[in-house]
């Protein structure tokens, strides 16, 4: 792990990152195959499919068969990278991922795009608030939620060299740069983005930016805040949680996901097991379905802004 923070925070389209990373991976690893379920245009990978017509397979609108066929391909040495929208990549094909994938030890990388509020105008039917919960409950699965373009690209490349079931959830749209492209990470290890003495915020994905902004505002009012990027939701980095909680007055988790079963639950489990007498606040989507609207509107509606983090802190301290 070698972390270098980005000097300038500019939004980079994740689908452009996906396309670029795929090209590099396909060039470097001859056994990698890329699969999509009629969302090649939506995932920004049309150029990749054109450049590697044999190794990029449009499976059509048949996600169940896509997961099964990918698993079959992996049994004879192929290394599949699969994309579809997060709800179709997880809840629609859960049994296929579970049995054809994890149970028989197949080798799959699944990119589930536009989780939570980032599904925007596709609305409630295309919204996943539970993908992390589902994937956490799947034995052997590694569950990843990158914070920015650099981390997303690194995870795609790194997992292409590994064997197992890797679920990567990320928006297709722009996320602000947190890390400089020179950064490297370690799967299973959180990254301390800043230290602080009163509160620690464990955050993932889109909520990293909110957590960092909330930290700046809270510190103006005299509250010292640490922020940790928990991009590996499973296996959770127990060590960093135990270390960062010491001496804090409040623990906050922040995720673009249901408060049931995601990062907040993972942190709560460790806190409960260890018997810490420290309050926990989970900034997350309540037990509800998604709806249609602009991402900004949905983010506010679901209670996933920096203000929601500040409110959670203010209520306790």
């Amino acid at each position: 792990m070698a972390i270098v923070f980005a000097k300038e925070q500019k939004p980079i389209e994740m689908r452009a990152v996906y396309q670029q990373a795929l090209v590099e991976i396909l060039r470097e690893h001859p056994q990698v195959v890329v699969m999509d379920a009629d969302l090649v245009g939506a995932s920004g990978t049309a150029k990749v499919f054109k450049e590697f017509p044999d190794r990029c397979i449009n499976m059509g609108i048949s996600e169940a068969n896509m997961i099964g066929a990918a698993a079959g391909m992996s049994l004879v040495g192929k290394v599949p990278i699969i994309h579809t929208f997060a709800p179709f990549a997880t809840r629609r094909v859960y049994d296929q991922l579970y049995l054809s994938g994890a149970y028989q030890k197949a080798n799959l990388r699944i990119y589930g795009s536009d989780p939570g509020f980032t599904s925007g105008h596709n609305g409630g039917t295309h919204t996943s608030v539970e993908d992390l919960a589902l994937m956490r409950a799947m034995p052997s699965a590694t569950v990843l939620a990158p914070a920015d373009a650099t981390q997303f690209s690194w995870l795609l490349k790194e997992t292409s060299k590994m064997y197992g079931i890797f679920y990567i959830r990320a928006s297709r749209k722009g996320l602000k740069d947190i890390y400089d492209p020179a950064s490297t990470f370690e799967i299973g290890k959180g990254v301390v983005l800043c230290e602080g003495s009163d509160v620690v915020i464990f955050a993932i994905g889109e909520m990293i930016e909110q957590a960092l902004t909330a930290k700046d505002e809270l510190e103006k009012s005299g509250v010292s805040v640490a922020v940790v990027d928990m991009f590996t939701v499973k296996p959770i980095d127990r060590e960093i949680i135990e270390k960062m909680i010491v001496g804090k007055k409040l623990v906050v988790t922040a995720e673009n996901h249901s408060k049931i079963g995601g990062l907040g639950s993972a942190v709560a489990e460790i806190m409960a097991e260890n018997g810490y007498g420290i309050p926990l606040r989970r900034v997350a989507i309540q037990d509800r379905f998604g709806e249609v609207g602009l991402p900004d509107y949905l983010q506010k509606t679901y209670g996933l802004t920096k203000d929601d983090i500040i409110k959670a802190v203010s209520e306790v301290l």
Partner: protein
Amino acid sequence: MSDELKLFSAKIRLETCKMLAHRGFGHLGGALSIVETLSVLFGSKMAVDPHRPDWDGRDYFVLSKGHAGPSYYATLALKGYFPTEVLYTLNENGTILPSHPDRLKTPGVDTTTGSLGQGISLAVGIAKALKLDGKPNKVYSIVGDGECNEGQVWEAFQFAAHQKLDNLIVFIDENRKQLDGLTVDVNNPFDLRAKMEAFGFYALRVDGSSEQAISDAIDDCFAHQNQALCIVLDTVKGQGVDYFEKLMDNHHIRFASDSKAELDKAILELEKQVVSGGAQ
């Protein structure tokens, strides 16, 4: 060839009946309907090496209707993948032979199947990957007619046809029954061969109790290139054992006094058949 395969079929059927008699219950009907197909595949068509189950030159077999595990296991044991005594551990605690095939547990099992609809997707994936690598290995998969209730099966069929997977033969075991009764009563499959043809397959329908017919159909299929291949097997659930062929509810049988006596009788008859070289 045919006499040898008839003998092999009799042996597979015998071992299947013996293991289920020992266990006292199991998926007898659907295991027996594919015996002749297993015999032709493992007895003559497939390139396999029981001493090297992971040999990369092997042909692949995917039992999509995973509940037929017992006759698959009997076939593998008779081929020498593991001792036939192991067959008696079917479903015992800690066994290498679970009800439904598990590639991580049993030598010779290429894929984990049993959640219906999923095996055929694995098979099309394996076939596609082999084609991408320009490898000559063949893939064979048996799907149940009841299993064709599953939508995923048709996703996989459409993919196979679109990709022109001519290195894969899809067998549909049309034994006309599923767990709750006749397929025509539960969820009518209509004309499976015609449906496969409409999907773009080169599709045949043959007597699934005839080793010769199955063998000829496989040769016929592989004479066709650039097209997906299907053989609908006209079979009987419980095939080869008169009492169980006639028993209506024969998907999963818990052998009680009558059925146990009939199973024991069948075992004696099959033993005679094996001794006499397979003739019925």
